[in-house]
């Protein structure tokens, strides 16, 4: 057997963050190998904001970003649907039929939320502020962030302080009265969280998923960025390759694939932190192991597809008729059960529906029937698959963001294992932001190695 070639960096995971990190490293002249356990590139659309910087810096062409218009449709109890559009005025017109008072507040709500999402965007394309730093440069950066926010005006500062820790239910109750509207917006607040809309921090989760969208659009865009990245030249990708980090004496030396070992100066993992550190436990400090074990990553979403007889008459359908409906769906999950009446969202491509079902603790025929009934299709046309682990590799709760992500004190992509870096959604800024963690990680790696 000939000795395996030595790589400058091996990236585990050919998902959007892994590929972004790989390409940034490759563009800086590093020899990069990407390994992924999947048999072939994932062609499903990437859900979440694509920071324009990444597309520009990597010189990507042909990235399609789709945000349907209307971006959501929700059935009304008395028949008909509430449809919300990219055009704030048009949405306000639609809302006026349900509540003139809500319609009057809609434009102001959209402006205020957009401004807060803008603050998050600024925070997301750089490493999380290091609050423990004693370095002048980092302190200046934090001060700069503070100034950036202050320049947005007093109202924005107050909104940030007030809204981020709030529950989405309280936020929406402050503004609106209509249940359908609050259900549609509230659903974005609980996305991928094992929390109900009355839980503190769900307003943050709502804003997190508003990032990258125009004012008045509260569902993330879907893009082809991952497919474009996979086809972008510059890095070698090996599919169907399951790899584990190899470290000796607290230093990463490469990855193990089957009985082979690929040696590399740097190993970058976009995999789940818990999974990444599992084989390294003997070399890790007990406190760190405990912190990793404490990452909350409870999967409560089932994704799947449904087939309609004819093309759907909607683009995105949200079945969450009220905040109470969401809260009751969560109550079941709280006690370890799948929701008796789950929240279902369907994105249509002709007659095919992509489904998001929450809260699903287990997937059983009962759940499939419920989802089918909610959509009005035969159960045989619905297939659901459990999420393998948490999609974001850690819930986006307030104690697991910024300098607390993935674990407190280790938010700068490096790990206690020298030469091992993380770049997945388990790191700042988390899931639902395509490639930001990968880019932030690559920049740190280039600076440090």
């Amino acid at each position, binding site marked *: 057997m000939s000795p395996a070639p030595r790589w400058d960096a091996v990236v585990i995971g050919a998902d959007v963050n892994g590929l972004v990190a790989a390409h940034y490293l490759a563009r800086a002249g590093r020899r990069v190998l990407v390994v992924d356990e999947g048999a072939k590139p994932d062609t499903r659309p990437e859900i979440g904001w694509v920071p324009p910087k990444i597309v520009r810096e990597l010189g990507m062409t042909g990235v399609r970003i789709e945000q349907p218009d209307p971006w959501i449709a929700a059935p009304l109890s008395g028949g008909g649907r509430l449809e919300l559009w990219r055009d704030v005025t048009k949405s306000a017109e639609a809302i006026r039929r349900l509540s003139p008072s809500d319609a009057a507040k809609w434009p102001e709500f959209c402006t205020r939320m957009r401004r807060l999402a803008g603050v998050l965007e600024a925070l997301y394309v750089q490493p999380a502020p290091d609050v423990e730093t004693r370095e002048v440069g980092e302190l200046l950066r934090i001060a700069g962030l503070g100034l950036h926010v202050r320049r947005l005006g007093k109202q924005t500062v107050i909104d940030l302080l007030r809204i981020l*820790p709030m529950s989405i239910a309280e936020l929406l109750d402050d503004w609106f009265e209509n249940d359908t509207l609050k259900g549609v917006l509230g659903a974005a607040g609980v996305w991928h969280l094992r929390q109900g809309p009355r839980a503190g921090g769900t307003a943050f989760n709502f804003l997190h998923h508003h990032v990258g969208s125009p004012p008045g659009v509260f569902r993330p865009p879907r893009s082809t960025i991952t497919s474009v990245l996979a086809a972008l030249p510059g890095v070698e990708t090996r599919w169907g390759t399951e790899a584990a980090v190899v470290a000796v004496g607290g230093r990463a030396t490469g990855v193990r694939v089957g009985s082979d070992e690929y040696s590399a100066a740097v190993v970058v993992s976009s995999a789940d932190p818990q999974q990444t550190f599992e084989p390294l436990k003997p070399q890790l400090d007990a406190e760190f192991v405990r912190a990793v074990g404490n990452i909350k990553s409870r999967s409560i979403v089932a994704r799947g597809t449904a087939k309609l007889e004819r093309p759907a008459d909607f683009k995105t359908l949200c079945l969450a008729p009220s905040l109470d409906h969401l809260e009751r769906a969560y109550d079941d999950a709280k006690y370890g059960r799948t929701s008796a009446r789950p929240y279902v969202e369907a994105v249509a491509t002709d007659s095919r529906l992509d489904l998001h079902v929450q809260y699903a603790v287990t997937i059983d025929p009962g759940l499939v029937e419920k989802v089918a009934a909610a959509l009005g299709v035969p159960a045989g046309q619905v297939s659901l698959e459990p999420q393998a682990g948490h999609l974001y590799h850690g819930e986006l*709760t*307030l104690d697991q963001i910024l300098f607390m992500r993935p674990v407190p004190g280790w938010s700068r992509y490096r790990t206690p294992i020298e030469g091992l870096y993380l770049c997945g959604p388990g790191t700042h800024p988390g899931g639902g932001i395509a490639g930001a963690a990968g880019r932030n990680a690559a920049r740190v790696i280039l600076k440090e190695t």
Partner: protein
Amino acid sequence: MAAAYDAIVIGGGHNGLVTAAYLARAGKKVLVLEKRPRVGGAAVTEEIFPGFKFTMFSYVVSLLRPEIIRDLDLPRHGLHVLPLESTVTPMENGDYLAAWGDHDETRRELYRHSPRDAEAYDEYGRLMHHMAHAVRPILSMVPPDPTSFDPRDLLALLRLGKHFRGIGAERLHALVKLMTMSSADFLDEWFETDVLKATKSASGIIGTFLGPRSPGTAYVLLHHYMGELDGVFRAWGFAKGGTGAVSEAIASAARGFGAEIRCDAPVARVLVKGGRATGVALENGDEFSAKVVVSGLDPRRTFLELIEERELPGDFVSDIKRFKFRGSSGKVNLALDALPSFTCMPGVGRQHRGAFSISPSLEYVERAYDDAKYGEFSRRPYMDIVFPSMIDPGMAPPGKHVMSVFVQYAPYHLNGGWNDAKREAFGDAVLNTIESFAPGLKSQILHRQVITPLDIERITGLSEGNIFQGELALHQLFFMRPAAGWAKFRTPVRAYYQCGAGTHPGGGIMGASGRLAALAILGDGA
């Protein structure tokens, strides 16, 4: 015309009294106006049933700031706190979990449930002790205004940042967790014994409209950990004569410094001339002028009832209107012929000198919250039970007892609203639940008083019956309490100040708001 008083304090609750005492101590001529026949607000002791004294609402003391006890020399004015040493949690299977005054005994008890938790218990206690110390300076500081460009605010914010960096990375992370997590999630990181987590997390839900699995409750856990009696952290106590005696002691200190206190004197409105408070008008029409008016009432009444909306900026009014109260606690006070015997620890003994916590499991407490979430009182509520007459025999006739039951949840916004029948049904739910842990209790009851959040509002004035004058939620704390930009005890109306628990640092018989308000007023040169 010269003002008759230097300062008028509206409301003779403990914070108003503390403010009055500090102002009088500085030589100011002070008048306190209280609507009820006695001072104390929600910290009162009343003889509802002949011979039996009830601590009507709040029932334990611990958060009262030691500097206030010292500055006002409260022991000389009759403050005498007796320790409340134990907590026993009866479990559904007939077992119990007990925490005793003696540390080693508590550890042995915990070991019985889980050796691992007994190990973790000390480390947890140390961490919380450090956290409480780290947060303590915050309690005694006027919150800086993060929206201001005033160099003094920027400097204060920087100092605050420095303070928190100074506590060390590990504790800073723990603090962030405490500020943002649910008490159940936080405790899950430490312990495995369900009943232990349930009982600890219960202190995180007191006075909130949240359950143990709701983020933000871990902070309230810490808030209660800050209990500090005579400088000893985490010591809960019971005031001799009930919590009313605490109010009486502060009132006595205030009078000693020359303050005048009038009861049965409900204030109708604050007089404002040219954007400046000039005095108050009572409901009977009497007017009093003062250089400074201080409201000890909650933010809703302070700004939306006592003064005209047009005196305030529109943004501020909407902030105050959005301030959340949502009272969730009720109280059942019982006069007893004899002490009840709990199945888990039969007979009468030292356990009755401490608290009984009805929090057998996390799921039990969480389900109690679920009921309230949808507008019903808990069918099987969380309860904190104490027997004040066991600690201070003067509370009941010889051989008889009083039992104080703090109950959660009883939502202020009950489906269909509260009425007499609902109140009694709530009382029945409480007694039936206790009866299941202490059979025979019902036959020992001589008199029962059931208090709903609506009753709390009607009697004390506390909006929506919230015992903390506004929820202790993250977005309603520190520089957000009661509204961003107005957390420094001043108000948009000149010479009008706020000193109640609706300001930083908030509820509990702490008195910190009252003291900080007085210092702010004196600092302004009033």
